[in-house]
């Protein structure tokens, strides 16, 4: 308990640093681009357009009829992108903060946390694109839509936990950066982004995909936003369990290694 309290105190003291770092990332991302912030919405819109064209014409193997395929695809793509961006940027966050942590004392977990928060901000912006597509395709607005905050929040915690582990590992072994890119590519194909696993008539796949936490977050989000169904009991506990396990692992691992970071970067 003492550990958690110390984390919280630190967090409260350095919350302004967190805001400022997020602000810095945001400013630097769009500095000198003509459209600026508009890209936050335009980029996911265009990316999903490409995916939609590819997977509804050339590689049409979505397995059965998916209601409102553009929205189905986009939800999967946006949530996966969030996880991908959050973990990747968190992974290299300690290295890019090297000049800072070598000279000033700052609680180190603030850097992976900042990257995951920044990815969440980007993700929220891309939801504007999702809303545009939903309006355009005439998707219904269901009363369950507010429940989508639950998978989003638990996914945030889950990504933070994974990000903390990766950030600590990368300090000692830079190989992780290359490996993780390969891993996430494989993960992408097993997250049911552009197909419906239940309609694929492949018993192995339908079982196997249940071991992928991302599948659960994405499916839970689709349930509430697209299908208008409330979250099932198994969704609620699996989303929460994955998040708690990942965060606990991340915090413990990161804490045990953090004093050594300065000597290795």
């Amino acid at each position, binding site marked *: 308990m003492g550990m958690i309290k110390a984390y919280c105190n630190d967090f409260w003291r350095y919350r302004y640093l967190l805001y400022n770092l997020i602000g810095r990332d945001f400013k630097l991302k769009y*500095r000198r681009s003509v459209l600026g912030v508009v890209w936050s919405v335009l980029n996911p819109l265009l990316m999903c357009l490409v995916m939609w064209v590819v997977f509804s014409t050339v590689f049409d193997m979505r397995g059965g009829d998916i209601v409102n395929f553009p929205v189905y695809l986009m939800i999967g793509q946006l949530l996966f992108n969030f996880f991908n961006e959050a973990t990747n940027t968190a992974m290299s966050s300690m290295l890019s903060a090297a000049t800072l942590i070598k000279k000033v*004392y700052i609680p180190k977990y603030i850097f992976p946390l900042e990257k995951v928060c920044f990815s969440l901000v980007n993700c929220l912006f891309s939801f504007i694109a999702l809303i545009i597509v939903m309006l355009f395709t005439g998707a219904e607005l269901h009363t369950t839509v507010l429940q989508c905050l639950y998978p989003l929040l638990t996914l945030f915690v889950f990504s933070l936990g994974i990000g903390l582990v990766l950030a600590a590992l990368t300090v000692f072994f830079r190989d992780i950066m290359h490996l993780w890119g390969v891993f996430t590519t494989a993960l992408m194909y097993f997250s049911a982004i552009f197909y419906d696993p239940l309609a694929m008539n492949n018993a192995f796949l339908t079982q196997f995909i249940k071991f992928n936490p991302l599948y659960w977050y994405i499916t839970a989000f689709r349930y509430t936003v697209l299908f208008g169904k409330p979250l099932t009991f198994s969704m609620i506990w699996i989303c929460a369990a994955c998040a708690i396990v990942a965060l606990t692992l991340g915090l413990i691992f990161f804490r045990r290694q953090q004093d050594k970071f300065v*000597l290795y970067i």
Partner: protein
Amino acid sequence: MNMIEINSVSMRFNMAKEKHESLKEYFVALAKGKLQFEEFYALRDVTFNVEKGDFYGLVGLNGSGKSTLLKIIAGVFKPTLGTVNVRGTIAPLIELGAGFDMDLTARENIYLNGTVLGFTPKYIDSKFDEIVDFSELWDFLDVPLKNYSSGMVSRIAFAIATITKPDVLIADEILSVGDFLFQQKCEQRMRELMADGTTVILVNHSIEQIERLCNKVTWLEKGRVQMTGDTQTVCEAYKLTTR
């Protein structure tokens, strides 16, 4: 009252002959039985106390462990052995502009660096004019820092770090940057802080400056304390050996 207590602090670094930056290299080295680190003690059994109101100087040749010691006091390194206790807030001036992002403007950096040091945005707001006045950079406030000269960067960094009244100010060779007018200004500012009860630890290669400013000095030699005492005695002894 002791503001800083340094109790038999040792700091060991593993000087990897080859740095193993990838898993493959690491395991290859492990298999060959070559995974040996050469141990290097940057500090060995250093003990001294800094009292409230001291203007404490650290002297020593390059590589004697002065900067390592300052970093331990600032909390950047954890000592391998021994303990360090610091009472109150620390303003570290270890390398000026550590928390700066060169792509941001000076205005943005003042806020970023201020929060790195743990200030609230409101507090920075209230001190903003004072910071810019001190660094004399009103004309360049919205220029990205990468276009600044190094002297300009250190001015603004010094101004931010000393805007608060810290209990302990750690200064690593900062007075050697900037022109002589700015150096005078920094000295002036440090004296003001001292008058308000700040304790200062100073590292400087210019022994004249140490003699002029400090009341107590510790002399480090290859990571060990060679001598501790009042400025006069230690500086005389130090100058005799280095001459």
